[in-house]
């Protein structure tokens, strides 16, 4: 049986909703199953792979940086790429170019790339299924 290809379109910026947690749970399972994954990171989601994200301490929790172990989406993106590769799949993660420019987040996790709506169109045409997780 040929390897399935799934496309996800994400829109939410990091640290502002639970939609991305859902998205990463789905992406993780798909990567573990060896699917090929396309991700079109649109609007706020174009910041998910921004490499200058940094974990911080949490004085309200009384925890330093190490204890708080604050998640960053760039680490989740990087882990996704590794997991997919480990299981024979590949991830084509596209950061919408105009979106990253207007936000100043054009330094990406290695293995992700700059792209455009044309990439999302190409993803859609080439995929077995497409899931849009929009901002509401």
């Amino acid at each position, binding site marked *: 049986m040929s390897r399935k290809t799934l496309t996800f379109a994400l829109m939410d910026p*990091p*640290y*502002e*909703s*639970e939609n*991305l*947690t859902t998205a*990463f*749970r789905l*992406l*993780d399972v798909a*990567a*573990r199953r060896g699917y090929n994954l396309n991700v079109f990171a649109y609007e706020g989601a174009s910041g998910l792979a921004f490499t200058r994200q940094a974990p911080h301490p*949490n*004085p*309200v*929790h009384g*925890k330093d940086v190490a*204890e*708080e*172990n*604050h*998640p960053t*989406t760039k*680490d*989740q993106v*990087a*882990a*996704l790429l*590794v*997991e997919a590769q*480990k299981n024979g799949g590949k991830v084509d993660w596209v950061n919408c170019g105009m979106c990253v420019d207007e936000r100043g987040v054009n330094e990406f996790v290695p293995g992700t790339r700059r792209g455009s709506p044309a990439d999302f169109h190409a993803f859609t045409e080439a995929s077995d299924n497409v899931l849009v997780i929009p901002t509401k």
Partner: protein
Amino acid sequence: MAKKTLNIVESAYRAVMEEQDDTIMWLLAAMQGAGAEHTVVLRGNAVNYAVAGQGVPGLTVGEWKQTQAPKMDRDLVDLIEKRKIPVYIVEEDLAERGIERGELVPGVKLVSRTALPGLFAEHVLVSHW
């Protein structure tokens, strides 16, 4: 003396996984430490923050694992006991969701919708989150 502020929190479980807490509860705790005087009313879906024993597994992506997943009941107890921030729960919103008083963390106070104007009158500012 700080302006007494009533904070009505309605938005619930928004970004709590990524932030490992509720951003408004965090903000109020931090502001209290800077001298603010806050009171909290949980309404709508946010009343669920007061249910004791809740929790969620951390997010896992490949080899990356979240180790400090949020616990909203713990954070609420921290607000009440450590920060001395009064926390009210709209009792009708609890009832609509089938949550019993005995399921809640200690220290929260129930308030009816009809009693809310009285709380408003006790505060200089009212912030609806």
